[in-house]
């Protein structure tokens, strides 16, 4: 009886530890988002300081396509997180894979096409500097997000997440949505606000 009581107490203590760790993990992740936001915010301010009411001459349709692709990826990432929290491993893996494919498609659209189609280079004045710095820094975050997703995908294949414990998935999902959030402001700032 005393062994059972002690085992239950140990289980409860372990559970409390996990809840405390989750709380600090979440707070830490959001503090990271806050610090990263300052960097992206600085880039946004730079764009308006240097270009003012002008906007770079960019492919509007391509901008809309890459934006839609990134939004769709956030949708699949949200599904992946919900699927793992209801114990559907296959659904989690399929949706994570879809998110990764869309993330890579976004990178191809921006770095592979938009960078090549832009009528200026990184050294061609303020327009080039602003455009390549903003898209480059954002693309780097997308790339690291895809790597993060690859890690949780491989761990998912090894069945390392459960309904109760999948903090890494939550963190990867939140990071991915943060990258999407940044583009919510970068897209209008680069493509839509101002005149050509």
């Amino acid at each position: 009886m005393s062994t059972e009581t002690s085992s239950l107490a140990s289980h409860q203590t372990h559970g409390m530890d996990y809840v405390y760790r989750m709380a600090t993990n979440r707070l830490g992740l959001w503090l990271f988002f806050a610090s990263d936001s300052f960097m992206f915010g600085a880039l946004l301010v730079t764009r308006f300081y240097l270009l003012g009411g002008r906007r770079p001459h960019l492919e509007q349709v391509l901008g809309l396509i890459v934006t839609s692709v990134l939004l769709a990826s956030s949708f699949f990432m949200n599904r992946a997180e919900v699927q793992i929290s209801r114990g559907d491993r296959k659904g989690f893996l399929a949706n994570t894979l879809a998110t990764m494919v869309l993330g890579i498609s976004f990178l191809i659209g921006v770095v592979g096409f938009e960078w090549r189609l832009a009528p200026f280079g990184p050294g061609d004045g303020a327009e080039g500097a602003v455009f390549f710095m903003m898209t480059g820094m954002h693309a780097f975050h997308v790339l690291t997000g895809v790597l993060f997703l690859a890690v949780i995908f491989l761990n998912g294949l090894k069945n390392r997440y459960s309904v109760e414990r999948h903090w890494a998935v939550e963190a990867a999902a939140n990071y991915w949505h943060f990258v999407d959030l940044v583009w919510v402001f970068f897209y209008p700032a680069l493509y839509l606000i101002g005149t050509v």
Partner: protein
Amino acid sequence: MKEKVAELHQGVKIIIVLAILTGIEFAIGVRELPNVFLWVIAILKAALVVWFFMHIRRVFNLDEGEHR
């Protein structure tokens, strides 16, 4: 389980709203209408992402989420 299915349906609704808002901002941008509309839409989209996809409320409420 019902809660999870509802969450999946909510995700569909949110992405539809985000897609519509993106379409509207594209239309505003190419017509060069006042920038204030673009800022309002961007803030609205950001709020939807932060609240429904990033679950910001989980930071302040330990009971939120599935890790128990």
